[in-house]
């Protein structure tokens, strides 16, 4: 069963590129959409790899050594939702059948990379599929060959190359010490010799690499440029899931299952998380570009997850993972809203907008839901995840960090309310009087994501129990 999550998209990629014209048009879209729906249901219902579980039926043919646990399942579910959203938005944002077909191919590769990242059990394989996702990302960012997008892709490429050097050096050290790069072998080495200098060095290098991949402060230099200058469906993919699957998820996985982090390492994680929250929120207050504001908001919200990871109590980890899911949903929704506004209004500058709520009611309403969830207002999903994180910090005696998280939520509310006021409320500009609501291919994912945001908030207890 785990192999299916990487083999089925691979075979679809091969099939779509066979020399048959009918596969290049609408068929490609619907086949990919069907695949993502299948992933959505399978990830929610597939059995976990527990002792006594049925073996992977493809194991005799493909000895991949993959494993699905509750953490992988949550990520597979989130990946399916966000990639489906991106695919739907691409029909509106990306012009030309050939360009859309190229987009589908690259997103399929990215899907293989992200799915494999969350289900492999070997550190080198993890690195390889992180790179597969990154390469697909570089190309997707610059798919329309616009100047700022190519600049953003180049910045991402450059910093990603530094992360690659750190990762490979770290893997080499782990191989030297453990004789193997599997999670089990490295975890065994940590149990036997946690004070080894080389082990600490390897851990530090890998964590730095993951901070770069996640776009956490102060390694965030590439994120605002890359996420704001690319087409909307690509922004949805990058901010919505790619930084989480290839950065934050890997951080959580290694911290929980492989590394044994010292008290100092956890304190560093908390400090960096807190700095990321505050820096991202303050940077948002000065932005006039809709997408750039959302990119800085991503930096801030990911800081909550890293802060909770540093706390490392069961309640904090629960909050971190729930916030990971919530952020994937509400950030994707906000980027879809930004894309709809950009296309309909012809600008992404919030200072040139205003009063769009009447002209674009669905976009305005769903944007308000996403903003309130991001700010942590009840009963939306973001409220519960932030509450759990703050309570976990308070219960473990980290009062200062709990205060930072709480006050930063006020900052989050401030910049998102400012965004709502500038874009959707206030006086309607004369030049914008004739714009209409975005078409159904945009409204449908907006409404779907808003429903998920509300449902996850109202049914959060069910979410926590299931995943």
């Amino acid at each position, binding site marked *: 069963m785990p192999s299916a999550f990487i083999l089925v998209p691979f075979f679809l990629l091969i099939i779509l590129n066979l020399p048959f014209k009918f596969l290049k048009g609408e068929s490609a879209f619907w086949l990919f959409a069907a695949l993502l729906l299948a992933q959505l249901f399978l990830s929610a219902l597939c059995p976990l790899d527990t002792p006594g579980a049925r073996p992977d039926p493809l194991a005799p043919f493909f*000895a*991949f050594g993959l494993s699905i646990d509750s953490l992988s399942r949550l990520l597979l579910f989130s990946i399916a939702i966000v990639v489906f959203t991106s695919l739907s938005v691409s029909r509106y944002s990306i012009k030309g059948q050939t360009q859309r077909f190229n987009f589908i191919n690259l997103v399929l590769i990215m899907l293989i990379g992200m799915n494999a990242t969350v289900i*492999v059990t070997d550190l080198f394989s993890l690195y390889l599929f992180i790179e597969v996702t990154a*390469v697909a990302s*570089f190309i997707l960012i610059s798919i329309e060959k616009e100047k700022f997008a190519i600049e953003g892709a180049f910045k991402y490429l450059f910093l990603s190359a530094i992360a690659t050097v750190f990762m490979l050096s770290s893997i080499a050290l782990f191989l030297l010490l453990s004789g193997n790069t599997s999670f089990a072998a490295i975890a065994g080495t940590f149990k036997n010799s946690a004070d080894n200098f080389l082990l600490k060095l390897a851990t530090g290098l890998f964590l730095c690499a993951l901070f770069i991949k996640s776009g956490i402060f102060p390694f965030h230099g590439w994120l605002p440029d890359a996420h704001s200058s690319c087409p909307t469906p690509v922004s949805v993919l990058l901010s919505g899931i790619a930084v989480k699957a290839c950065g934050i998820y890997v951080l959580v996985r290694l911290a929980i299952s492989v590394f044994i982090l010292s008290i100092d390492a956890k304190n560093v994680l908390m400090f960096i998380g807190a700095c990321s929250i505050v820096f991202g929120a303050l940077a948002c207050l000065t932005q006039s570009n809709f997408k750039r504001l959302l990119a800085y908001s991503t930096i801030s919200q990911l800081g909550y997850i890293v802060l909770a990871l540093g706390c490392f109590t069961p309640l904090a980890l629960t909050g971190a993972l729930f916030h990971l899911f919530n952020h994937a949903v509400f950030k994707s929704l906000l980027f879809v809203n930004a894309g709809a506004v950009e296309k309909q209004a012809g600008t992404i500058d919030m200072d040139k907008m205003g009063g769009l709520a009447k002209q674009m009611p669905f976009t305005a309403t769903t944007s308000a839901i996403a903003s309130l969830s991001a700010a942590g207002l009840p009963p939306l999903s973001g409220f519960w995840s932030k509450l759990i994180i703050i309570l976990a910090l308070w219960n473990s005696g980290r009062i200062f960090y709990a205060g930072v998280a709480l006050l930063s939520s006020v900052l989050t509310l401030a910049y998102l309310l400012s965004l709502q006021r500038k874009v959707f409320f206030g006086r309607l500009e004369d030049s914008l009087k004739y714009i209409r609501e975005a078409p159904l291919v945009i409204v449908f994912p907006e409404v779907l994501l808003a429903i998920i945001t509300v449902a996850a908030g109202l049914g959060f207890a069910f979410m926590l129990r299931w995943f």
Partner: protein
Amino acid sequence: MTVRLIRSIVGLALTSVALSALMYRLGSPLAAVFELSVCAGLMSVIFITTVSFTARVSKERLSVRRRERFMKFWYLPFLVIASGLLLSRYLRIPQFKIPAPSGAQDVRNVLWNLRHVDLFGQIVMLLAGAFGVVVLFKEPKE
């Protein structure tokens, strides 16, 4: 610019050759052969082919760029040497024992029997590269 790029590519190829020699000396001849044929050979051919499509830069513009680069970064070699001297004087690297390597495994056995998922990943990476070339460099039909 073209001459300088080709110098960079030749430098990369020479580095790959040195790395191949190192791998051979460390007892991994297959890895050395891969490094030599793919990195020093095939990659250099691909790079030089790509560079041959770029436009030449005039000598005057080249010399202006060299001067600008020198003015911006002249202090870097001194900074690196000074940092190295300071670090070697004051930083004490703790003594650590590197464990002896476990029994040598044949590269072919590791590659074909133990690392299936990595082989799959390599194929996907190649496909990503191929799509990248098509998407970024192919001219759209009129």
